[in-house]
């Protein structure tokens, strides 16, 4: 067993864990945060993607023990996140989810796309999303939702630049 202390959704957490425990299993089993979903458990599908120190990471192939001292945000912790708040609305408007299994990972990934890109074209958004598999939607709604949030962000930046 090894001792782990980290911050999850703003709360300090301390636990004794088996070193082979993945971050995904730690979140789901130890903390009962079932919003983090598992699809492939080897890094390929993106369902388990969470935000670690402001970067999206695969919780299925990250050992919980390696997360000493980090800040983890799962889908349960996005309530007050300004980007995810806009993404949630855009996902709703653009029908970017059906069963919702991929959605927690999609939101963590989409948030990162919005934050790192100012004017991506559809091709770039699709390339960035290549690591997130959705079996329901066919992706078009997801791509449109992300594009829409980036557009409002660019408009806000342009408006700000215009006033100075």
């Amino acid at each position, binding site marked *: 067993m090894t001792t782990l202390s980290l911050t999850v959704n703003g709360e300090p957490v301390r636990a004794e864990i088996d*070193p082979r425990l993945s971050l995904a*299993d730690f979140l789901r089993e130890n903390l009962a945060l079932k919003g983090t979903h598992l699809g492939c458990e080897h*890094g390929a599908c993106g369902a388990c993607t969470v935000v670690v120190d402001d970067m999206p990471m*695969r919780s299925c192939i990250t*050992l919980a023990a390696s997360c000493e001292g980090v800040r983890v945000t799962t889908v349960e912790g996005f309530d007050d996140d300004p980007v995810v708040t806009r993404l949630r609305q855009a996902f709703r408007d653009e029908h970017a989810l059906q069963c919702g299994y991929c959605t927690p990972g999609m939101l963590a990934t989409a948030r990162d796309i919005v934050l790192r890109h100012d004017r991506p074209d559809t091709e770039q958004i699709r390339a960035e999303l*290549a690591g997130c598999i959705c079996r329901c939607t066919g992706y078009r709604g997801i791509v449109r939702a992300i594009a829409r949030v980036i557009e409002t962000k660019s408009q806000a930046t342009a408006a700000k630049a215009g006033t100075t």
Partner: protein
Amino acid sequence: MKAPAFAYLRPVSIAEAVAALAEGAGGARILAGGQSLVPMLNLRVAFAETLVDIGAIADLRAVSDEGETVLIGAGVTHATLEDGASGDHWCGMLAFVARDIAYRAVRNRGTLGGSLCHADPAADWPVAMMALGATVQLAGPDGERALASEDFSVDVFTTALEEDEMLTGIRLPKLSPSARWSYRKMRKKAGAFGEAIAAVVHDPARGFTRVVAGSSAVGGPCRLEALEGAVASGSLAAEATIRAALAEREPDLDRYEMQIHATCLRRAMKEVSS
């Protein structure tokens, strides 16, 4: 599937990590980003009695400018190189290669050193590093040693690392501003491993030219010296010459494999010469 139980250590210095490897006597393994090792442990195709997690060793994330070369710490992530956060002395080549490795969530954890040590024959960094003339810096119980990337890369999933050694850094010569490079990869979708890779670097100011191919089909990164003369002289190698160089390295390529490797090489050499 889940990994069988292992012990876990989190050293904060290279010396501690090397000591932990020696103590583990063959049963200890380095854990870097875990982006290859953790899935392999879970699938039970790799085993470890003890994992030595090097994620807390700050020295391994350092990048030092040494004048004509830059020493990149083994723990620098693909994402850091993608963002150019460690400086660009390679005319954008490192960022270009990094951007197309896996997905951002994987690139945020996966490291340059981990990719080289894992030595997946289809991986990107081993090919790119050989094309740039990198040397690797290893640390073991008897001190440090340096190896050219050609000597480090031994075979599929096999490097020159001894059981009690670790990779600490990658020393890369800077490219001259007039240098040209091309990196071509054929793959089924964004983020998937390449089925064929070609990297060409031509730096006439330094008299340096490299042509490297890589993939599972050719058994990992391989320098194709027979093609370097054409690139150095600014001429285009004939298709038959490209195919002969590939066949000499790997006589068993089927027609499809030969086609995609030859096409990547031809395009890369043309891009550098144009």
